[in-house]
């Protein structure tokens, strides 16, 4: 690691975060449990789900065209892979909680529960399982002869640095090689400059900001050009009316429950403030290192990839995101204390829900910007895919050398050959966890000597 930890804003809960140990204070544990109860309740009422894929299915559920059981099956099918493949390994390797681990299961449990109180109870139960189970799993795994959790910290460098590039990939895919190359050069120069001038700062922060701003600039320029030359096509007005009425109904449903959403926003924002939770794919590793200002920047720019998707699915289905437009994450990281974070979170959610209708109309007029967000999400997936694969192989090498690479790389390739029963992004870390178990068994059988120089 080339940058030192702990230069950003300090919070009261800071001392409880260690390199790779999930040690929550009683107040933090209670916040997690209560928040999980609330998120399960929101899912039960079909008012909010974390999984963007589940949200469109809630429209049929709300209107009574599908059953609770069928919707639960959909939610489980869409979420399970990301809990065990993304949420759990990331929490174990970073020592920081993440929304995939906490909120995907509460989506499923909330929809599953036939009664409101049961939904809250199951959600709270899951929160408790995560808080206490992960603590135990962590302690147990660190005590094993082959410590695969310490090895998994190898994931952080490739994730942080390749994630920096995601705007470049999005610009290249949407606006071609020339602008992609320009964006790439700008980002590279900023990374080099940041490393030279501010060695204690996360090197990708400024580069990522520039990249996302360039992409948004290109997209808005393209939309303005198109608006001047083409104007509105007459045959689409019927669809626009249908969209408008569908969106208005969705927005109205959300506005009716504004107090509940403010409560949800307060909870998520307070959790983000406690420095034991990272909202984005790369953020967990920054939070673990105490770089809250950088984490806030990363998640702020990441928001542009998800904002149009969350806004349009929310308007179309009448169900919101558990983290809203994800603006509460950066607000939470930067808040000085949990109380202010809760107040800010409530206000952010209120503003988001009230602005959703106009946001939908603006997005409808800016098709290039909506495309940009799809490219951003695609680019996040691609950058993350390579980073996680490479980081996982480094982890395999750190814990078992050649044999580790053979077992973990082999499991990954086997998953590919079998038609990917485990999602691709999740396959590599899952292979490291499975490989770690295999190597421990081999050690126990006296067939393997651990590599002692594992990563610090």
């Amino acid at each position, binding site marked *: 690691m080339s940058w030192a930890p702990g230069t950003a804003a300090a919070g009261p809960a800071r001392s409880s975060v260690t390199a790779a140990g999930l040690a929550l204070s009683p107040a933090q544990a209670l916040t997690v449990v209560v928040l999980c109860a609330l998120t399960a309740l929101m899912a039960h009422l079909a008012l909010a789900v974390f999984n*963007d894929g589940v949200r469109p299915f809630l429209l049929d559920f709300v209107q009574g065209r599908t059953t609770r059981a069928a919707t639960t099956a959909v939610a489980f099918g869409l979420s399970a892979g990301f809990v065990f493949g993304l949420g759990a390994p990331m929490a174990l390797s970073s020592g920081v909680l993440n929304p995939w681990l906490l909120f995907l299961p509460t989506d499923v449990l909330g929809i599953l529960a036939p009664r409101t109180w049961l939904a809250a109870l199951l959600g709270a139960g899951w929160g408790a399982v995560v808080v206490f189970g992960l603590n135990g799993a962590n302690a147990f795994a660190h005590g094993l002869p082959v410590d695969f959790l310490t090895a998994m910290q190898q994931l952080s460098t490739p994730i942080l640095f390749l994630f920096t590039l995601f705007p470049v990939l999005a610009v290249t895919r949407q606006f071609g090689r020339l602008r992609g190359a320009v964006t790439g050069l700008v980002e590279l120069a900023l990374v080099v400059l940041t490393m030279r001038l501010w060695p204690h700062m996360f090197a990708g922060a400024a580069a990522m900001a520039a990249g996302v701003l360039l992409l948004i600039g290109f997209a808005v320029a393209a939309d303005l050009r198109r608006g001047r030359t083409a104007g509105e096509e007459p045959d689409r007005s019927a669809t626009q009316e249908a969209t408008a009425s569908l969106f208005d109904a969705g927005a109205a449903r959300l506005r009716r429950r504004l107090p509940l959403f403010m409560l949800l926003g307060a909870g998520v924002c307070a959790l983000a403030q406690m420095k034991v939770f990272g909202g984005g794919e790369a953020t967990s590793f920054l939070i673990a290192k105490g770089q809250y200002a950088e984490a806030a920047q990363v998640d702020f720019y990441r928001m542009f990839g998800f904002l149009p998707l969350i806004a349009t699915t929310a308007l179309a289905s009448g169900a919101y995101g558990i983290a809203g437009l994800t603006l509460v994450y950066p607000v939470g990281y930067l808040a000085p204390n949990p109380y202010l974070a809760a107040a800010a979170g409530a206000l952010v959610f209120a503003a988001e829900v009230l602005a959703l209708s106009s946001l939908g109309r603006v997005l409808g007029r800016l098709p290039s910007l909506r495309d940009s967000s799809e490219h951003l999400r695609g680019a996040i997936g691609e950058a993350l895919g390579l980073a996680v694969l490479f980081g996982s192989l480094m982890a395999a090498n750190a814990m078992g050398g050649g044999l580790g690479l053979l077992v973990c790389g082999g499991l990954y390739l086997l998953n590919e050959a079998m038609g990917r029963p485990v999602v691709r992004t999740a396959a590599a870390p899952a292979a490291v966890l499975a490989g770690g178990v295999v190597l421990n068994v081999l050690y126990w059988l006296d067939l393997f000597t651990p590599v002692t120089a594992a990563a610090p």
Partner: protein
Amino acid sequence: MAKILTGGIGRDEVARTVSGLGIAGLHIAVANDMDAAGQLRAGQADYFLGTCHTGAGASLGVLVGLLGRSACHTFGRGEPTEAEIAELLAGGTTVFGFCLDRIDTVAPRLARAIAAARP
């Protein structure tokens, strides 16, 4: 002649995969969910193939709400058989969603089935 629109994260890859098959009578174009909804309703296009990370909700975007549940089907991360696709097509499904990492198998299968259903 059938016009297929692609959407979602993998829309370029789906368009490339399907046009690479060289099936006669298929016209394929890259779109997004909002545009596709307009074209499908106006009869300017016949089918929509959407992709996302899970193969479900986000792959179809607003199409479920605008065209109705009965016109839409998502395979999630599964790989449907030719018989399943033929049955859906016969039943009037025009909007299909599937997972990004299943494009190489699902997209050609869907394209062939659509071509077969519309001689």
